């Protein structure tokens, strides 16, 4: 146990772990993460199996990466604790009876004789120090007085506070990982959905997309209402960067789309031989409508928002955006299919209607309406506030470590024949120049005071 603690208290171990974690993290950005096995097989060939087994393909969530982080945390804890007790001792129980030779070994030091007795010198020195916000500790022994003047002692703990912050952040990460979850809610306007793992529901009141004058998307806005026992509790317009927060849950604008399963189509039917003939039909995909005369019935079997024939000669939709809307229409008469084919909203002349007999009808896809839905990400992250606290400690610690350096002055006053010999030395770990000039000012004004 003792040797284990010794192993983890080594800074060298910290450095080695830091280097290993850094290299592993780099590896994780070079290998695409969390893709399908088939994609890895194409990319890495025979190596793929090995990479997957070593969890290199889900590296940041792998047992070994998190194991490294665990070892690193243990290392930070033990290193920090190890350094903490001498620091506490230095702050709260400093050794006051330092030797003259201790002071003589300091780089910033001064030695002079003052024409005052010890008490008066001590008083004046105390005034100088407190004017500069130093706190004094004192011990007397015979004709000698030992003074320790210090300020910004909290700076000594800067690095420990940074480490504490990091550990809190890691703890927050673990809590987020274990207790957090995410779910996408696909909502149409007016729809109410229960929030998973919660006893309330959300309703989408309104969804709209705003555009810039040049046609780019400015924003997606979902008006959400939280319902509890069917009673509205809270309403908010959720947009990107402005989630709704309720009872530890957060709701984000995460996506949108259209329901292309059953859009409503507007189809104009004309006759080549009869220019005055025009039927405007509106019906949903899957519905059968009658043309009126001739007993012809139309049915739209499929709708594709972005029609394309791919390299395998299959008809499919390239995307979910309505870039090239197309509908597959069949015409029936007397229980017999008389024609069928695709018609295109953007290319009316391109219609491909196949018919057994000669056909007099032309079909145009004039318009289509489908309901748009909003995708709201519901997430619960119990670790997030812990993360913010950790970040606070991290920044406080960094500020203290770099910009609040401890200032320490050791003074020995020794009286002989009514005069006092002053031996003083200062310790500064950082920003020594500024400290030295402050030290010299204190000493000079003591020397000159009358």
């Amino acid at each position, binding site marked *: 146990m003792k040797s284990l603690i010794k192993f983890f208290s080594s*800074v*060298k171990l*910290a*450095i080695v772990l*830091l*280097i290993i*974690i*850094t290299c592993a*993290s*780099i590896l*994780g*950005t*070079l290998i*695409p*993460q969390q893709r399908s096995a088939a994609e890895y097989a194409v990319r890495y060939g025979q190596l793929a199996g090995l990479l997957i087994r070593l969890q290199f393909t889900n590296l*940041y969530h792998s047992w070994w990466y998190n194991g490294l982080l665990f070892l690193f945390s243990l290392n930070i804890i033990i290193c920090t604790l190890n350094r903490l007790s001498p620091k506490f001792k230095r702050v709260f129980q400093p050794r006051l009876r330092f030797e003259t030779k201790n002071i003589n070994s300091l780089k910033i030091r001064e030695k002079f004789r003052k024409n005052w007795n010890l008490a008066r010198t001590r008083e004046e020195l105390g005034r100088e120090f407190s004017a500069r916000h130093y706190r004094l500790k004192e011990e007397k022994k015979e004709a000698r007085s030992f003074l320790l003047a210090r300020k910004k002692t909290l700076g000594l703990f800067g*690095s420990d506070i940074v480490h504490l912050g990091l550990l809190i952040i890691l703890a927050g*990460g673990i809590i*987020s990982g274990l207790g957090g979850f*995410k779910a996408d809610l696909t909502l149409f306007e007016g729809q109410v959905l229960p929030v998973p793992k919660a006893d309330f529901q959300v309703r989408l009141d309104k969804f709209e997309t705003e555009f*810039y004058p*040049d046609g*780019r*998307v*400015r*924003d*997606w806005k979902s008006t959400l209402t939280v319902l509890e026992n069917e009673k509205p509790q809270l309403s908010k317009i959720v*947009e*990107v*960067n*402005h*989630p709704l927060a309720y009872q530890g849950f*957060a709701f*984000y*604008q*995460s996506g949108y789309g259209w329901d292309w399963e059953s859009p409503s189509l507007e189809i104009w039917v004309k006759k080549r031989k009869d220019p005055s003939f025009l039927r405007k039909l509106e019906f949903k995909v899957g519905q059968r409508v009658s043309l009126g005369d001739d007993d012809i019935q139309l049915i739209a079997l499929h709708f594709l928002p972005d029609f394309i024939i791919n390299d395998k000669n299959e008809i499919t939709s390239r995307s979910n955006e309505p870039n090239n809307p197309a509908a597959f229409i069949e015409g029936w008469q007397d229980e017999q299919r008389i024609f069928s084919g695709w018609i295109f909203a953007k290319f009316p002349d391109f219609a491909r209607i196949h018919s057994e007999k000669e056909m007099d009808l032309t079909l145009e896809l004039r318009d289509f309406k489908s309901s748009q839905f909003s995708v709201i*990400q519901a*997430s619960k*992250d119990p670790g*997030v506030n812990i*993360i*913010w606290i950790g*970040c606070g400690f*991290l*920044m406080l610690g*960094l*500020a203290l470590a*770099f910009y609040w350096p401890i200032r320490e002055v050791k003074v020995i006053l020794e009286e002989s024949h009514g005069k006092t010999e002053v031996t003083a030395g200062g310790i500064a770990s950082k920003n020594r120049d500024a400290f030295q000039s402050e030290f010299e000012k204190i000493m000079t004004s003591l020397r000159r005071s009358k």
Partner: protein
Amino acid sequence: MSESTLFLVTFIFYFLAAFFYFSYFFSKKENLAKTGFSIAFIGLLLHTAALIMRTVESGHAPFTNMYESLSFLAWSAILAYVIIEWKFKIRKAGALFMLVVIAIMALASSPLMPKEATPLVPALQSYWLWLHVSVTLLGEAFFALAFVTSIMYLVADSKEKKGKAKKTGISSEKLDSISYRCIAIGFPLFTLGGLVFGMIWAYYAWGSYWSWDPKEVWSLITWFVFALYLHTRIVMGWKGRRSAYIAVLGFLAALFTYFGVNYLLAGLHSYA
């Protein structure tokens, strides 16, 4: 004067500053360095005006695409240089540093970078854009300065070892300490802007404070490298060459985080 003209004039000023700094570098006449500094300072003022014009014209923060963010990085670098030069007098580093700034400006004005201001996509419409990007880039500017002083340290150190060091200019010891000072400024800024503000913004925009997105991972890697620098230096007492190598490595990681990730790795950070 339009924003693009102002940008060009700024570029010319930086060129002139570099010219004077190089003249100083070879002739060692103090006045040349002082002139170089004044010109760089005027350049900084012009650049500030250009950035303000851009902000007013576009109606959003001046760092939403690569051109804008490079321009802002160059501005931060000059600002960092002015601060460090004013505090520590590192004139000799001026020439090399101006070259870095000119490289950034040249990249910004290359035809590969679309210049037109485009309206903000929904994800960028947040005041965190200001906080996250500006503080991060300012931190990276100090890393750039640490990089330049570290390179100069490595050169000066090998000269001193060969006994070829000239008495004038800054000692390698001072370069080493200035490099550390730059990291002592850059590291907290990068932590605050890049990691902390980044996490907060990610939480509000993407619904998760950390997604292991390549840019996030690379900023963490950069942070690790500088953490390594600080621990080896403060706890283990490393100085000089080994420290300088880590500082160079850290800047390269920062550069890759800023630049390489966008072009080489796909991820959430697709804007700039």
